């Protein structure tokens, strides 16, 4: 289905087509998502299976050197004449064993140890293991004061170093497999009568055939340490009792299974109600924030780009300037302007009307944040759709005019379908962005007005600002982690379905 085919349809056909494609598209996209996950799993298992097969068959077919490198890494390479490479493998193996013996292994065992006795009164959980059997629950948590902090492990450290050790093990396993492959490859080369590459030649490959390794190694290590590691850490945190009462060092936290999830979904009425209300408001907010900005932004762009309108640059710059000022500045100004005793209300009361509780009444605050978000967001949409408007092929309008279409018809038949067609991916990213829109809510209302019906949240709080409050104000790290996982699932499902629906990803080779 091409854009041009679409434009040529009659109105009735268009409506029918739109309704049809909307409903046929959704199940297809969801099915596509599951199919993609299925394909991914299948591929994963085939890769693992093939890996094992290759691992075994290389051992069977290998000579003494290759067989030896299954135990002593690098032995094969060295015996086949690749001294430098072999030494590298050997050093890696020794370093790994040393790391595991002195450091890694202890954390692997500590991750699920039972209690450690600190003094006769207090039994503290070893590290993160189970809740100790004789643990005395004290309402004031005073009994948990431990006299000698040195004997206590820091739960954060244990959890972190455990994850780190697992990552190191995976990395080492990859090197180990490479070692067996490389030993076998050099054996084959030797058998065919050639000489395997020397160390220098092999290193030079990292500037050419293997240049992608050189380019990607640093970004990947950076991502693993400061993005993947924290994410795994956070997911683990969701299964512990890491809250205000369990703050290491000095106190420990331990595994509690799915308790936090249960609390948030049903077992704690206050928390589950809060979650329900916040999710509903998050979606209401995201829908309004996205579509008001989208439609009005396009209308604004149309007005500015209308042929007869002069000073286009001036109008555009005026709006771009407001978008360019850092958001925390503009939003704080808005908050001050709309305060109960702020300038806007002083103008309103000056006219003899009563002041409006823009940000202090729940319903007013909800309307206000959506309207202020329009102020923040419309310039962006205007900027983007201005660029798109210039791209609409002029001959489309030309032929429409010849057929007698008026300006309104040109808009509904050409301009809007075209823009909608091109900006659908943008619309969805904006929607996800609005679900995660921290700034507007936090700086304007701070999530407030507060209410006792909510657990540590206010009536305009989104999932993300609730997460922030749980982390900063109440130190309920475990709950915050659960919310984070929920946010991720919502965003990931939405994005993946769209990603499947949009064909943009398939066209990436077009230019090459």
């Amino acid at each position, binding site marked *: 289905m091409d854009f041009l085919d679409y434009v040529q349809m009659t109105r009735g056909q268009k409506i029918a087509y739109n309704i049809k494609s909307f409903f046929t598209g959704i199940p297809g996209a969801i099915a596509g998502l599951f199919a993609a996950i299925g394909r991914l799993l299948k591929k994963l298992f085939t890769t693992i299976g093939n890996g094992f097969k290759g691992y075994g068959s290389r051992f069977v077919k290998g000579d003494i050197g290759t067989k030896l490198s299954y135990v002593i890494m690098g032995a094969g390479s060295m015996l086949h004449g690749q001294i430098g490479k072999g030494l590298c493998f050997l050093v890696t193996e020794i370093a790994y064993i040393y790391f595991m013996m002195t450091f890694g292994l202890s954390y692997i065992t500590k991750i699920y140890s039972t209690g450690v006795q600190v003094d006769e009164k207090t039994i503290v959980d070893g590290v993160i293991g189970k809740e100790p059997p004789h643990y005395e629950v004290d309402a004031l948590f005073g009994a948990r004061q431990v006299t000698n902090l040195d004997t206590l492990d820091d739960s*954060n450290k244990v959890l972190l170093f455990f994850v780190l050790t697992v990552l190191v093990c995976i990395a080492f396993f990859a090197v180990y497999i490479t070692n067996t492959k490389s030993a076998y490859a050099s054996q084959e080369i030797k058998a065919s009568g050639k000489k395997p590459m020397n160390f220098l030649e092999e290193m030079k490959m990292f*500037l*050419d*055939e293997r*240049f*992608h390794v*050189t*380019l*990607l190694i640093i*970004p990947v290590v*950076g*991502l693993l*340490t400061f*993005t*993947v*590691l*924290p*994410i795994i850490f*956070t997911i683990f*945190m969701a299964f512990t009792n890491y809250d205000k009462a369990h703050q290491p060092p000095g106190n420990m936290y331990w595994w509690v299974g799915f308790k936090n999830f249960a609390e948030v979904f049903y077992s704690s009425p206050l928390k589950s109600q809060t979650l329900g209300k916040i999710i509903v408001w998050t979606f209401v907010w995201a829908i309004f924030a996205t579509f008001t900005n989208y439609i009005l932004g396009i209308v604004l762009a149309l007005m500015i780009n209308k042929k007869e*309108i002069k000073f286009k640059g001036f*109008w555009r710059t*005026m*709006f771009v300037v*407001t*978008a*360019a*000022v*850092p958001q*925390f500045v*503009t939003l*704080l*100004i808005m908050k*001050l302007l709309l305060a109960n005793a702020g*300038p806007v*209300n*002083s*103008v309103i009361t000056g006219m003899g009307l009563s002041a409006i509780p823009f940000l202090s009444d729940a319903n007013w605050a909800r309307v206000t944040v959506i309207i202020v978000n329009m*102020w923040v967001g419309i310039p962006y949409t205007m*900027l983007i759709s*201005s*660029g798109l408007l*210039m*791209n609409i092929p002029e001959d489309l309008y030309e032929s429409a005019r010849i057929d007698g279409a008026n300006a309104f018809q040109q808009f509904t038949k050409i301009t809007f379908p075209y823009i909608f067609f091109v*900006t659908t991916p*943008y619309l969805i*990213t904006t929607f996800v962005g609005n679900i*995660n829109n921290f700034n507007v809510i936090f700086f304007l209302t701070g999530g407030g007005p507060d209410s006792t019906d909510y657990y540590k949240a206010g009536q305009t709080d989104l999932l*993300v600002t609730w*997460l922030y409050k749980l*982390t*900063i104000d109440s130190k309920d790290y475990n709950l915050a*982690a659960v919310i*984070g996982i929920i*946010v*991720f699932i919502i*965003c*990931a499902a939405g994005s993946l379905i769209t990603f499947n629906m949009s064909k943009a990803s398939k066209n*990436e080779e077009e*230019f090459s």
Partner: protein
Amino acid sequence: MTNTSTSTMQSGYAAKKKAINTLIYVILAIMVIIWISPIVWLVLASFSGDGVSTGVVPKTFTLDNYIRLFVEHDPNTGEIVPMSEMRFPYLQWIINTFIVAVLSCVISTLLILMVSYAFSRLRFKTRKTFLNLGLILGMFPGFMSMAATYNIMEIFGLKQQLLALVIVYSAGAGLGYQVAKGFFDTIPRSLDEAAKIDGATRNQIFWIIILPLSKPIIVYTALTTFIGPWADYIFVSYFMKDNESAYTVALGLFKMLSNETYSEYFTVFCAGAVLIAIPITILFVIMQRFYVAGVTGGAVKG
């Protein structure tokens, strides 16, 4: 149809058109006023000599607010307080933000260029897997794992330090490769092929051929990564906690509006906000075209 009726129709059409255009001018003018007036109010308040006022236009004007950003007098002795003891050391925040911004700009730009070049020009076995993993990782909102990142920094001995911010802003930068990759995708492949035939390695192609052609995208990447730290509030507020000497501008200005200092420092806040908004606004206006190309996935050519 007579001549007269045609001309009336035409003039009627022209009048209608004129009326529509006038209406659009009026709407645009009203909108500009709505959009610009908060910013005008900010600028006016930054020169205001009446402290906090509910009025729209201040009664007296002064440069004091700008001076107070940099100089503080001891209320008892009247002497100038050294920067380290100032209540709100604005200059210190600027220096902090600048250091963080420059470092994370350099590191992020390098990482983004490396990743996007690899994904755009090189074909290797795990490429698709990496692209998909990158897509999924990019869906985690960065601050979702903020507490964990803080703990990691603490264990690495970087608690409440500027270096921790640099790492947070730049370590994950590799994920922001899409815009630069889109740019590299448009550079003709024949250039690579020709160089390859002449015996150039992929490393040389990257440095000698691709990078000199990529100035616009390098500038864009550098500017966006440079601006980031000036506007971020979430990470700084969580990472710096009460270590005021390591605040960045955004957090520091936010603290000026806390309940205890609000009435005394409100106009100073406005002055500080104006000072940092000016350079950022200029940078943004310069690179708006790239911004559009970035979010629409290169759909814009103009």
